[in-house]
């Protein structure tokens, strides 16, 4: 019984982390049509920025804000300033994937060069332990979960109830028709890179605060779960990503509790394989083959 409660509590904690990351990742794909493989390394870069800032400020809100702004800025540079010329040159989807993966490599190894040998350790964020049934969690962890849920609700409100959100959904569904209807699609795309990049940066800060020790490949570990969550939810669909993230969090914490933490990755792999074989809708070629990248 206590194992079940533990699993659910920690599953929600790690699930909210995966979910908020997956929402940013899947928004990027859904609206800009770019599968951003550099997403994992950008998460790591945000951890590094958070680490530097936390040397002087340990206020959680400040860290999250800095991470969000940093993630938004670097994603904007990647998505608009770097990818823009490639798209105008006619680079197609696979070419874009090769570009983003190499950008990711450059970020990852730049961080490795900065980091040097050995792990870095995030400063402990002050907080006090709280008992939920038998599970002991820190107040800062609860705050992070609250932040994740607040951001997901914010994304929901943005997409559902604002004119900008309507324009985003229209751009996602049919960019050409949207432009014909007077939607400034290039500005919508730029805004999407900023918002999803901010979510990416916040994800990095949450990951850094909750794991403590980190290195230049830490973001890649979370990226596996984020991609799995996006695939479960149907890529390009923010609500699917939220559900997928929570499912992945619960499943992976359950695996860690029942079998071994080493099997988390195996479970993510199994989830990807099962979804690809059983319900590839939303990621199958038919759904997305006709879509084009435009700036």
């Amino acid at each position, binding site marked *: 019984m206590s194992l079940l409660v533990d699993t659910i509590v920690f599953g929600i904690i790690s699930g909210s982390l995966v979910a908020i990351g997956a929402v940013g990742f899947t928004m990027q794909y859904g609206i800009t049509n770019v*599968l951003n*493989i550099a997403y994992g390394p950008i998460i790591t870069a945000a951890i590094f920025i958070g680490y530097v800032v936390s040397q002087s400020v340990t206020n959680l809100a400040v860290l999250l804000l800095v991470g969000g702004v940093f993630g938004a800025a670097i994603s904007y540079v990647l998505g608009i300033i770097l990818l823009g*010329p*490639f798209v105008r*040159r*006619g*680079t*197609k*989807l*696979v*070419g*874009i*994937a*090769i*570009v983003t*993966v*190499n*950008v990711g*490599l*450059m970020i*990852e*190894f*730049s961080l*490795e*060069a900065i980091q*040097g*040998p050995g792990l870095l350790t995030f400063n402990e964020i002050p907080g006090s332990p709280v008992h939920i049934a038998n599970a002991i969690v820190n107040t800062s962890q609860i705050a992070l979960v609250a932040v994740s849920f607040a951001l997901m609700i914010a994304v929901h409100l943005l997409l559902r109830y604002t004119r900008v959100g309507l324009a985003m959904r229209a751009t996602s569904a049919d960019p050409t028709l949207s432009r014909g209807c007077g939607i400034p699609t290039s500005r919508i795309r730029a805004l999407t890179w900023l918002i999803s990049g901010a979510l990416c940066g916040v994800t990095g800060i949450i990951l850094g605060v909750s794991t403590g020790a980190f290195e230049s490949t830490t973001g*890649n*570990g979370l*990226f*596996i779960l984020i*991609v*799995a969550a996006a*695939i479960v939810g149907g*890529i390009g669909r923010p609500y699917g990503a939220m559900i997928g993230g929570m499912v992945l969090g619960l499943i992976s914490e359950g695996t860690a509790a029942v079998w*071994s*933490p*080493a*099997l988390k*990755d*195996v479970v*993510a*792999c199994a989830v*990807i*394989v099962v979804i*690809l*074989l059983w319900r*590839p809708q939303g*990621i*199958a*070629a*038919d759904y*997305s*083959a006709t879509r084009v990248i435009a700036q």
Partner: protein
Amino acid sequence: MSYYISSVLIVTCVDLIAAWGLDLQFGSAGINNFAFIVFAAAGAYTASVVSLGSSSALGGFQSYVGGSHWPFPLPILAGMAVAGLLAAAVGAVALRRLRGDYEAIVLLVLSLIATGVAQAEIGLVNGPAGLSLIPKPLVTGLGLSSLQYQWVYLGWCAFLTALVFLFLRRIVRSPFGRNLRAVRDNEAAAAAGGRNVFALRMQAFVIGGVLAGLSGAVLVEFVNAWAPGSWLYPETFALLTAVIVGGRANLGGVAIGTILVPILFLEVTRFLPSIGYPGLIDSLEWVVIGLLTLIFMYWRPQGIFPERRRRFPSRSSGAIGSGALLSSRSAFSASLAAPAGSSHVAKSTAAPE
């Protein structure tokens, strides 16, 4: 120095086999195999396990699956077979009509997962420490000095490389190779022309996987050690950079790219004066490799030596099905980058001379 030169040449042969294998998948068949290094690692692991002997020998200080003393060429064949089977299994999941970039990200994530599992499970591959003391083949039977052995091993690698080259040249020029390029350039047209797209891609994927296994097995028998940390996902992109720089779907171009990028570039930096802590230059090398790919993707996506436009002698029969396929022949070089309406597209005609 002689020792060093022979080592570099052996690694060159290994990288050539691997780069050609990746090029068959990426260049000819258009499969974005971002997990290529996993198949090389699987081949290498298999080859080491079947030549190491039982895991309880030597005090059982390393644990692995299986273990036996197979004679010389068998470990390499076993590595090729296992890598091929793994490619068939992965291909059955990942090649199911996913969009190109999606296929790429799924394979990349599988590559990351494979590393994670290999490092976490001690019983499977001895964890992050990996395997060591893998015996060199025939080292006792030949009775050579270690330097002589180097050159003999180089000869064996060169022989294998030549074999792979002839094999791939044969494939590229065969109807099978034409079908692969047709699938790559226009999947719908190839399917409409009666080609089994999934089977063709699968065959290319498995052949490339077998070649990856071969390169891994030959390498591991040379360096005598195997660890998950030396087969990480960036290695795939060193090879991919070689293919992109040299020129995809051009065996000679890929060979030049391999000599330029993974060999010359990575070896020359060893002679630079060391700056900072050990490993700093290695990290910076990867940053430069990423930058190199971006530069080529922007200014010369077809590589230094672009794929040759193939011309066919006119034939009276069989033109109905293949005509449509041939017309899209050179669209691929344009499809990855190249400005719209470039000379490549304009010159693309199916007309046989």
